[in-house]
């Protein structure tokens, strides 16, 4: 017998020693090969190339770069259970089949609480590495952007400052540009239109969560600019970014 056959095969001559696992070497190798080739097929998906990123794949703060994240995360749901705002949700197919049930932030359900690092504390495999509150408050998990076809001051010429009021960063990541717009009666009217400061926004998503438009908010967070994936950036370094 080959040395490792001892561990998969019979315990010894029948009737003398207790029965072993009774596995067939060929089937073990076959199963291993299926896993390996299946794994490699997953590994050639565009999402694993560091060129293609899902805008919807906003991971909790402290999440490591996507490839390492997928290798570590066991989809146990600890982070989803502990999240105080219920923002962390099991992914469907946002990150491809292999990212099924990994944690993604859904800002319509919750948002990333500025003072909280619980998900990074409870992750058993350090797919979300432990971060301090100070570090977390500087980690970008994504970036907010305005949907000008929906956001009230842009689309309808109505005053709304809800997102700016909730923005938690010390210097607000949402600022206003005062603009003249024409209202429904044809009169010129001054209105504050919100803008995102790309340097200050950490993607916490409270703006999206508190936006009065509930069915897909007027301001939303996408994964662009996330700290964990150096390739998924918005600003080219050296160009004043």
């Amino acid at each position: 017998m080959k040395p490792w056959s001892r561990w998969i095969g019979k315990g010894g001559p029948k009737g003398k020693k207790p029965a072993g696992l009774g596995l067939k070497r060929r089937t073990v190798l076959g199963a291993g090969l299926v896993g390996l080739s299946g794994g490699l097929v997953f590994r050639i998906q565009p999402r694993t190339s560091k060129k293609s990123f899902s805008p919807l794949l906003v991971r909790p703060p402290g999440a490591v770069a996507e490839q390492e994240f997928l290798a570590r995360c066991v989809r146990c749901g600890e982070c989803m259970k502990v999240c105080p705002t219920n923002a962390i949700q099991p992914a469907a197919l946002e990150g491809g089949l292999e990212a099924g049930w990994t944690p993604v932030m859904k800002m319509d359900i919750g948002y990333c609480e500025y003072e909280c690092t619980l998900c990074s504390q409870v992750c058993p495999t350090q797919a979300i590495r432990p971060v301090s509150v100070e570090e977390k408050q500087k980690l970008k998990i994504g970036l907010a952007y305005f949907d000008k076809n929906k956001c009230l001051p842009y689309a309808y010429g109505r005053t709304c400052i809800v997102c700016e009021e909730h923005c938690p960063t010390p210097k607000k990541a949402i600022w206003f540009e005062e603009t003249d717009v024409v209202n429904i009666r044809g009169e010129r009217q001054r209105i504050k239109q919100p803008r995102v400061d790309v340097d200050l926004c950490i993607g916490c998503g409270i703006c999206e969560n508190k936006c009065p438009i509930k069915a897909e908010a007027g301001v939303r967070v996408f994964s662009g600019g996330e700290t964990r994936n150096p390739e998924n950036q918005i600003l080219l370094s050296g160009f004043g970014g």
Partner: protein
Amino acid sequence: MAMMRRASWLVWLRRLTQTFFLALFFYLFLHTVYHPINRTEGPIKLFFHLDPLIALNTWLAWHTLERAMLLSTVTLIVTLLFGRWFCGWVCPFGTIHNFFTSVRGGPAKAKLATGGYDRWQRLKYYLLAGMLTAGLVGVNVVGWLDPISFLFRSLAMAAYPAFNRGVVALFTWLYDVNPGLGAVRATAVTEPVYEFLRGHVLAVQQPHYHGSVLIGALFILTLALNFFRARFWCRYVCPLGALLGVVGQRPLVRLKTTAEACNDCRLCLTDCQGGAGQQGGPEWRPAECFFCCNCISDCPTHAIAIGVGRKGEAKNETLVALDR
């Protein structure tokens, strides 16, 4: 019908241990919350750190292992020396399957028909082999099927939110209707109970999760399969059980029979949880045995006991009288 037999004290010890670990699992589950401050209480990740499958897969996939994961070597060493006690005595998912298997009941004859070893039990080893090679290239199939992970996910995303919804609805209804007789109202009792539940068991806010229907359906499926075969998940699917089976297939502690006492009635298979084959002797498969000790209770001639050493048949002098 077979005479009702008093369970071996080992069975009671096992039930006690299982209850303890299941209660600990639920306790840690309920404490995995934001509890006014940004810190969780207690060893929240204990069961994950005891899980050598997660440790092995993380190591294969990313070649690193955090220090806390070294706790899983305890499980490995215990299994290597003594067999799959983890499955029968510690694993919270195993305990839940054990519970549903016991609920099934049924006549001994029917249980006996499916109590023995089934070649399909090898499936879990083949699944494990495939999962680990997939893990080697960084695809985490283990995460979907690891029992600790599976249980926590199912509880967190389906069972617990549904439970929470149900309890809140019940107590809200009781509060609104407030049935009673004269001055004695139900709320006098139900409100303090509700207050306690809100403080210790229920969620601060009703949790909602995308995909909870699928997660819940798979959970119910694994539980329902216990009615088809005792501890179906543990016997046929569980990758952690497979890993522990590989490691623990030559334990130092074994179930042994005394040849003169065994009359080959095979009643030891009636309540066998793992489908380990006829106890003692050459047919018994240590890799499939959870050491649940039900066979010790079931044996009408008290021929089975736990003994030390790698030989299947017990000599009377090496046996510790454990059957009663």
